[in-house]
C-alpha cells in the first residue's frame, strides 16, 4: 500500500519536474496544436461554395436585428405584436370555456353534490376547489395556448440569442455576466427554469446576481394577470379602436420595466453585496433555422401550456378550498377573510393596493397563476355580491372580460389600482417553487431570503411613489 502510494506520488513529482521542461505557455501551445490539427482535417474534407451568397440572408438579418439603432425598437415591436395577438385572440375561447365550465357545469355539479353532501363539504369541493380550477382553466388556457407557441417559434427561429446579443453590453456595464441575458430570457418562460439556467454562468458572484434578478422577468404565471388587468384598466381608458394596442403596449412597458429593474438591481448588487468586475465570455449567434410549425405547436402545447396549466390547477384546487374556508369561517359574524382585508386595507391604501390584493398574494404564494382568480373570489366574498355568485367564497360566474371588470369596479378598483397591481405583480416575491429552486441552487438561506424579500421591498417602494404622485398630480 505504501509502495503504491509512493509510486502515485512519483507520477505527480514527474509531472511537476516535466512542467519546467515544457514551454511555460503549455495551454496555448496545446490549443494551437489542436486548432492546427482541426484546420488541416477540415481542409481535407470540407468544400465551401464558390460564391458565399448563401450566407447573406443570415448576415443581413443579423445586421438589422442586432443593429445599434434598430435592435431594441425591433425587440419591443416583436414583444408588442406577440402580446397583441395573445390579448385579441384569447378573449373568445375564454368566453366559451367559462360558459361551459362555470355557467353550465357548475350548477349541475353543485346540485348533484348538494343531494348527498353536507353544505360545507359541497361548498369546499364544488364552490371552492372546482370553481377555482374552472376559473384557472378558462382564464389561463387561451392566452397560454397562443403565447407559448408564438414564443417557441421565435426561440426555434433563433431570435433569443439576438436578444441576448443586444442586451449583453448593458449587462456588462452593470457588472454582470453577459449570459445573464439568456437566463433572463429563460425567466420569461419560468423563473424556476431561469434560475437553473444560471448554471451556464461560471463565476459564483455573477451567478448569484443572475439568480436574484431572474424574478424580474415576467413568468408564465404572471403574463395572464398582466394581460387581463391591462385589458380591463388600460384598454378601457383608451379609445375603443386603440384598446388592444394600448393594453399590449402596457404589458410591453411592464416587461421592459422588469428588464430595467434587473439591470439596475444587478448594478446595485455588483457595487455593494457582490462586488466585482464582469468576466468576459463569447456568445455565439446560431444560424436562423426555419421553425418547424407543427412540431413547435405540438411541443409547446404539451410541454409548456399543459405543464403550466396542470401546475396551476394543482395549486388552484387547495387554494380554492382555502379561499372558501376563509370566506365562510366567521368570528363575531365576520369572515376570516374580511377580518384580514379590513385590517390590512388602511395600510394597503398607502400603496394604492387593497386588502384583497395583499391576501390574494399570500394565498397565491405557491403559484402566481391563481392571483387573479383569488382576487376575484375574495372581492365577491368581501362585497357580499351574492347575486353574482352562489354565496360567499364562491367564484362568480363571469362570461367575459367585461364582467370581470364590473366586479373589480364594484370592489372599488380604479385605474390606479390596476396599474399598481401590474407593478406589484412584476415586483413581488418569487413563487414557492422558484424560492425552493433558489435555495437548492445557492444552498444558502441568506441569498434565498434576499431573493425573496428584495422584490417585495422594491414593489412596495414603487407602488408607494406611483400612488403618492398620482394622488398629488392626477386627483
Amino acid at each position, binding site marked *: 500500500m505504501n509502495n*503504491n502510494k509512493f*509510486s*502515485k506520488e*512519483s*507520477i*505527480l513529482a*514527474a*509531472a511537476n519536474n*516535466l*512542467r519546467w*521542461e*515544457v*514551454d511555460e505557455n*503549455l*495551454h496555448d*501551445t*496545446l*490549443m494551437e*496544436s*489542436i*486548432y*492546427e*490539427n*482541426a*484546420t488541416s*482535417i*477540415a481542409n*481535407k*474534407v*470540407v*468544400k*465551401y*461554395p464558390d460564391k458565399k451568397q*448563401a*450566407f447573406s440572408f443570415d448576415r443581413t438579418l443579423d445586421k438589422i436585428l442586432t443593429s445599434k439603432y434598430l435592435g431594441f425598437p425591433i425587440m419591443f415591436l416583436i414583444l408588442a405584436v406577440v402580446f397583441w395577438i395573445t390579448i385579441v385572440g384569447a378573449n373568445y375561447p375564454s368566453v366559451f370555456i367559462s360558459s361551459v365550465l362555470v355557467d353550465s357545469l357548475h350548477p349541475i355539479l353543485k346540485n348533484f353534490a348538494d343531494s348527498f353532501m353536507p353544505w360545507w363539504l359541497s361548498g369546499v369541493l364544488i364552490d371552492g376547489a372546482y370553481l377555482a380550477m374552472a376559473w384557472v382553466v378558462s382564464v389561463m388556457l387561451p392566452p397560454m395556448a397562443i403565447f407559448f407557441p408564438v414564443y*417557441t417559434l421565435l*426561440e*426555434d*427561429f*433563433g431570435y*433569443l*440569442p439576438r436578444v*441576448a446579443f443586444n442586451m449583453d453590453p448593458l449587462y456588462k456595464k452593470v457588472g454582470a455576466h453577459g449570459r445573464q441575458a*439568456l437566463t433572463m430570457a*429563460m425567466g420569461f418562460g419560468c423563473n424556476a427554469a431561469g434560475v*437553473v*439556467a444560471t*448554471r*451556464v454562468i*461560471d463565476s459564483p458572484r455573477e451567478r448569484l446576481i443572475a439568480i436574484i434578478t431572474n424574478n424580474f422577468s415576467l413568468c408564465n404565471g404572471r403574463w395572464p394577470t398582466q394581460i387581463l388587468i391591462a385589458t380591463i384598466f388600460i384598454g378601457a381608458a383608451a379609445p375603443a379602436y386603440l384598446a388592444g394596442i394600448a393594453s399590449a403596449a402596457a404589458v410591453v412597458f411592464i416587461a421592459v420595466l422588469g428588464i430595467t429593474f434587473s439591470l439596475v438591481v444587478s448594478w446595485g448588487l455588483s457595487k455593494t453585496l457582490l462586488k466585482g468586475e464582469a468576466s468576459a465570455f463569447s*456568445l*455565439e449567434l*446560431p*444560424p*436562423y*433555422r426555419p421553425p*418547424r410549425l407543427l412540431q413547435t405547436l405540438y*411541443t409547446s402545447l*404539451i*410541454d409548456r401550456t399543459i405543464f403550466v396549466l396542470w401546475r396551476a390547477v394543482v395549486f388552484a384546487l387547495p387554494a380554492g378550498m382555502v379561499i372558501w374556508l376563509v370566506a365562510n369561517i366567521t368570528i363575531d359574524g365576520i369572515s376570516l377573510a374580511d377580518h384580514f382585508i379590513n385590517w390590512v386595507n388602511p395600510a394597503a391604501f398607502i400603496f394604492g393596493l387593497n386588502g384583497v390584493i395583499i391576501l390574494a398574494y399570500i394565498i397565491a404564494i405557491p403559484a402566481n397563476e391563481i392571483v387573479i382568480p383569488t382576487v376575484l373570489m375574495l372581492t365577491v366574498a368581501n362585497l357580499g355580491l351574492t347575486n353574482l355568485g352562489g354565496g360567499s367564497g364562491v367564484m362568480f360566474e363571469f362570461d367575459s372580460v367585461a364582467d370581470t371588470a364590473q366586479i373589480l369596479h364594484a370592489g372599488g378598483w380604479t385605474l390606479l389600482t390596476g396599474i399598481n397591481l401590474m407593478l406589484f405583480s412584476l415586483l413581488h416575491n418569487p413563487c414557492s417553487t422558484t424560492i425552493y429552486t433558489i435555495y437548492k441552487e445557492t444552498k444558502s438561506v441568506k441569498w434565498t431570503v434576499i431573493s425573496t424579500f428584495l422584490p417585495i421591498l422594491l414593489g412596495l417602494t414603487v407602488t408607494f411613489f406611483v400612488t403618492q404622485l398620482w394622488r398629488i398630480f392626477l386627483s
Partner: protein
Amino acid sequence: MNSLEMSNCANCPVHNMGNLKKLGIDMSSFDFVVALAGNPNTGKSTVFNYLTGLRQHTGNWPGKTVTRAEGGFEFNDKKFKLVDLPGTYSLLSTSTDEEVARDFILFGQPDVTVIVVDATRLERNLNLVLQILEITNRAVLCLNLMDEARRNGIKVDDRTLSKELGIPVVVTSARQGEGMNELLKMIFEVASGEYICRPYRIKSNSSELNDAIEKLSSEIEKEFSGLPNLRWVALRLLEGDQSIINAIRSGDLGNLKRQELAGIESE
C-alpha cells in the same frame, strides 16, 4: 429483382426502424451507456429526444442544456442508456458545464460517445472532437445539421473524415430524422465491439511537449497500465489539473482501467 432488393433491405437492420424501441426514462437495466457530447447548439438534445422519445427542451440557442439528461432506448435487443451532456466548446477549461461533460466521458466511462457536430461549422467543432478522442477511443461522429450545410452549399466528405478521425461518421439531420437509422447502427457496432475505432491523436509541433507527454505517459502506465487515455491524463497533469491529480492520489484513475478491462473481457 425488385422483390429481392426489397427483402435485402428489409433484412438490413438499418432499414427496420422497428428495431428501435424508445424507452423514455425507463432505464431499469441496460447493456450499454451512450454519451451525447458536442458544441452548444448542434442538436444534441434533438438527437436525444429522437432516440428516447423524451421531450427534453430544445431551442435554437446555445447553452440550454445545463444538467445531464438521461433516457433509454432499445435497439437490436440491446438496451442503451443515453446521456445528454451540456454543450461545450472545449474540455480544457474549468467551467461547470465543461466539467460535467468531461467528468462523464472520463469517469462515467460510456461505452460509446456520440459527438454531435454542426456540419456548417465543422472546423471549429473539430477542436472539441479531437479533445474527446484523446479521452475515449469509442466514439461515433454525428455530422448533424446537414440540411443546413446543403442549403448553404457546403459539402463535407464524410468518408475521408471517417478515415482521418478513425471513427465512424454518420451524416444526419436530426430535426428531420434523417440518418438516425445509420446512427443507431453505428452506435450498436461500436458498443458491441464490431467496429474498432482507431482515434486520431493530436499532433503537436512542440517537440518539448511531445517528449514530456511521452515521458509522463510511460510513468503513469507503470502504475495504471492499460489506461485508454494515457496521453490525455499526462497532458492534464502537465497543466496541473487538480481533479486529475486527485484521481491519481485516490486511485480513481485505476477504476477507469478496471472498468475498461471488464468491458473488454465481457465481450
